[in-house]
């Protein structure tokens, strides 16, 4: 463990490099189970650690303990693929219908970004582009990469992959931005003659895609990133 003062940069980096030679043991190497809810490491009898469905409970928070989250990879793949499937209608179908002074139009997620851009609001266009288009695509790519490499027990760029996982955990839910916007706009713009705004089916698929990618990220056990290393070391 590296302890650093809050503005950790060069100092921390240096300590990393100095210490990275001999890292502390991992819980799985010592027959301990780390609780993924509260972080406490507790002892487990050896055969228990081998089993997918452990009957052990964390002594502090009573959550079920698993050496690794059960079926982590297949669950994460399932959620990720489901998210990819619903992501298609989420982008093809319109998310909102607006009519102003009799002129009605339907807009898609991408269409909304283009509209903002063309009306000169490049800053808002950028925010929505990042939240609704860039973040989901980055999540698909990163999760796919993590799942693929973990499945092959790769030892490639472990620390960078761990950082990628933290990144998608951090940014994942920002894709809900468009859902919040559509919800608010549709609640506000309800003037019979002057204008109305109604949600369209695309937003349902879009919300589902965001939900599914979040579930995929949660199902993935980042400890798997490091398991290839342990294997190599012992072999």
């Amino acid at each position: 463990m590296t302890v650093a003062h809050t503005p950790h940069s060069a100092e921390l980096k240096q300590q990393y490099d100095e210490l990275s030679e001999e890292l502390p043991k991992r819980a799985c190497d010592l027959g301990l189970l780390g609780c993924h809810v509260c972080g406490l490491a507790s002892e487990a009898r050896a055969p228990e650690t081998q089993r997918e469905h452990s009957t052990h409970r964390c002594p502090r928070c009573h959550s079920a303990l698993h050496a690794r989250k059960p079926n982590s990879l297949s669950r994460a793949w399932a959620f990720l693929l489901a998210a990819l499937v619903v992501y298609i209608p989420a982008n093809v179908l319109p998310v909102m219908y607006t009519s102003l002074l009799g002129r009605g139009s339907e807009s898609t997620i991408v269409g909304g970004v283009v509209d903002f851009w063309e009306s000169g609001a490049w800053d808002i266009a950028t925010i929505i582009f990042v939240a609704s288009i860039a973040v989901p695509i980055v999540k698909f790519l990163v999760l796919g990469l993590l799942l693929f490499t973990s499945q092959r027990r790769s030892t490639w760029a472990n620390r960078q992959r761990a950082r990628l996982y933290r990144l998608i955990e951090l940014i994942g839910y920002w894709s809900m931005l468009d859902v919040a916007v559509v919800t608010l706009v549709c609640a506000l713009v309800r003037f019979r003659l002057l204008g109305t705004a109604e949600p369209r089916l695309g937003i349902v698929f879009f919300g589902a895609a965001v939900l599914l990618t979040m579930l995929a990220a949660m199902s993935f056990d980042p400890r798997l990133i490091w398991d290839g290393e342990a294997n190599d070391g012992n072999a």
Partner: protein
Amino acid sequence: MACEHCDTLYEEPTLSRVEVATCRRCGRVLLRGGAPDANVTFALAITASIVYGFANAYPVISVGAQGQSNAATVWQAVVAMAHGYFIPVAIFVGVSMIVVPLLQIVLLGWVTGYARLGRRAPGFTAAMLTLEYARPWSMVEVFLIGALVAIVKLTANMDVRPGVGLVSLLGLTLLITFLAGRSTRGLWTYASTETAPSLDTPARDRQ
């Protein structure tokens, strides 16, 4: 304790306020310094509950066009969405922007309120587990930015006025980020001792 992201074992350190413990294997932040002070967290939870009340009672935005006007609170926005195919979306928005934030505030207030008295709150474990599971689904800040985008979107055609709810949402975002984002993990230290936990010396977990 074990790093949640890579399973590396550490003896739980006692950190001063400005210190941050990072995992040497994967670089994840393990602990932030300064055991969460029950008094501070409790006071912030009370503040947050008041601000939460404002954020939900007052309209976030009101729009006007040619004499007509319309305003929406967070709840009204969710209800307006709850029709037909859009009910799942309304539920998702309602849960992540109304229910979960309230749950976080109430449970944190509950746990730290008892910790102030030097006691372990009834249902401590359940409350802490709920907090842990609820955190990823709390999205007040997304709603805040969503409201700002909506304002820009509507300004072109209508007369848009931000409401009290919007300002309150900003306050709520800051409070919840500080409350739930930073300190829930550290609160587990109150569980380790049945007797009065000292706020400055968190109980240490043995490997």
